[in-house]
């Protein structure tokens, strides 16, 4: 077991030297979480928009369910995906278990409710502002949804970021469906968990730093975009 100071020093060395294993883990983490975020946005944003502008019996229950799904436990999602993708499961023939694809699927399931629920709230507020004008123009629902998604694009970036943050920091689901296999499915969070349990704090800390830096950098980027958009009254 290393002392904290030593581990910290080694971690900095790993980051500074551009260690190949480290870069591979970081790269896979970003690929998996960005892909999950993209798929979740494709599903969640239109779903949120439809819920924002639609009125139907049971809408309240649907919203309660969607909000509840935001708190889906990652291990439960991992277990469900595992059961579906395992050889005896209904999707076992796809052979996706212990692959990055399975990890993307698990993270997509995990963050789609977050993106759908947050975008629903945001777009419903925007729709409240536009509704009379849109009704006056007799716009079909698909044009209303398109307009809301476009006009809310800068605010929706924050929603996407929230989803990405949840995905990249998640460990329970990806460790179950990915298996934390070296050079195949090992991502930052699973590697941190593994290295910590082994007592190799340097790699765990290095990955932790990178995770924090990525989170900060993406937040800064989105904040800059939003502030620029606000300055030009586009947000």
């Amino acid at each position, binding site marked *: 077991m290393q002392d904290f100071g030593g581990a910290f020093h080694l971690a900095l060395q790993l980051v500074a030297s551009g260690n190949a294993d480290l870069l591979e883990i970081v790269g896979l983490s970003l690929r998996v979480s960005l892909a999950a975020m993209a798929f979740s946005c494709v599903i969640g944003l239109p779903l949120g928009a439809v819920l924002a502008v639609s009125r139907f019996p049971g809408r309240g229950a649907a919203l309660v369910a969607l909000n509840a799904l935001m708190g889906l436990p990652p291990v439960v999602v991992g277990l469900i995906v595992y059961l579906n993708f395992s050889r005896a499961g209904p999707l076992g023939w796809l052979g996706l278990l212990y692959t990055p694809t399975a990890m993307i699927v698990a993270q997509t399931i995990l963050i789609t409710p977050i993106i759908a629920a947050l975008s629903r709230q945001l777009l419903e507020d925007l729709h409240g502002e*536009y509704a009379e004008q849109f009704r006056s123009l*007799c716009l079909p629902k698909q044009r209303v949804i398109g*307009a809301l998604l476009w*006009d809310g694009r800068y605010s929706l970036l924050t929603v996407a970021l929230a989803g990405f943050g949840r995905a990249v920091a998640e460990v329970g689901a990806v460790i179950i469906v990915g298996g934390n296999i070296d050079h195949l499915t090992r991502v930052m969070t699973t590697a941190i968990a593994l290295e910590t349990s082994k007592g190799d704090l340097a790699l765990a800390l290095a990955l932790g730093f990178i995770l924090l830096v990525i989170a900060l950098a993406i937040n800064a980027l989105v904040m800059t975009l939003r502030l620029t958009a606000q300055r*030009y*009254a586009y947000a």
Partner: protein
Amino acid sequence: MPSDIASFIGVLRSDSRADCRRTLLPLQTEGLTLVSAGKRLVDSIDLTLASDKLTAVLGPTGAGKSLLLRLLHGLISPTAGTVLWGGAPLNDAVRRRQAMVFQKPVLLRRSVAANVDFVLRPKGTAARERRDALLADVGLLERARQPARLLSGGEQQRLALARALAVEPEVFFLDEPTASLDPASVLMIEEIVAKVRRRGTKVVLVTHDQAQARRMAEEVVFLHRGRLLEHSPAERFFSAPQSDAAEAYLAGRIVL
């Protein structure tokens, strides 16, 4: 010959538009009522607007002017009563031949040009030319690329007018379009509305500004506490109002 054909098509088109206008008017409401929280906000209004004159809807605060406009345009549904446009019930097809500008302009989070483009479909060179012409009409062509929400209040309202006019409405509803604007902006908007009116578009204008109503209105609909008290030529309304409430309103006494 091509020019003859073109002029023939032009005549057909203008006749067709005239037919549309003829079929949209008269507007008739019967027992039009809106009740909310047990209060009759619009109370059994029977109204016929037959001509394409500019109609000003006047009345004190809370008289139901804006609600009446929304009921006529179909933005809200009445509790009771009917709205008929040219004898036909209000539906999307009828509403597409109308446009409305609100007191607070609702502008999209886009450029000035994109706000007009949003209504002009299909896109293309002709649409761009039409958009530029609309923006030129309201004096905003030079600001086409700027964010719409950074315009001044008067400019925003002019943009809202341009966007509404992009649908080539036969009936144009204006809900206090000059409220809280500076005199120069008020004048510009009145000029735009007057030009629209001269083109034969039916304009229904809600206003609190009596001076504006005197300048623009050809007929007046006066509401008080949700009820229609007067519907008369503007000149007669302003010179000899028939109801005590209208007289008090014109005298500047508060009528609630």
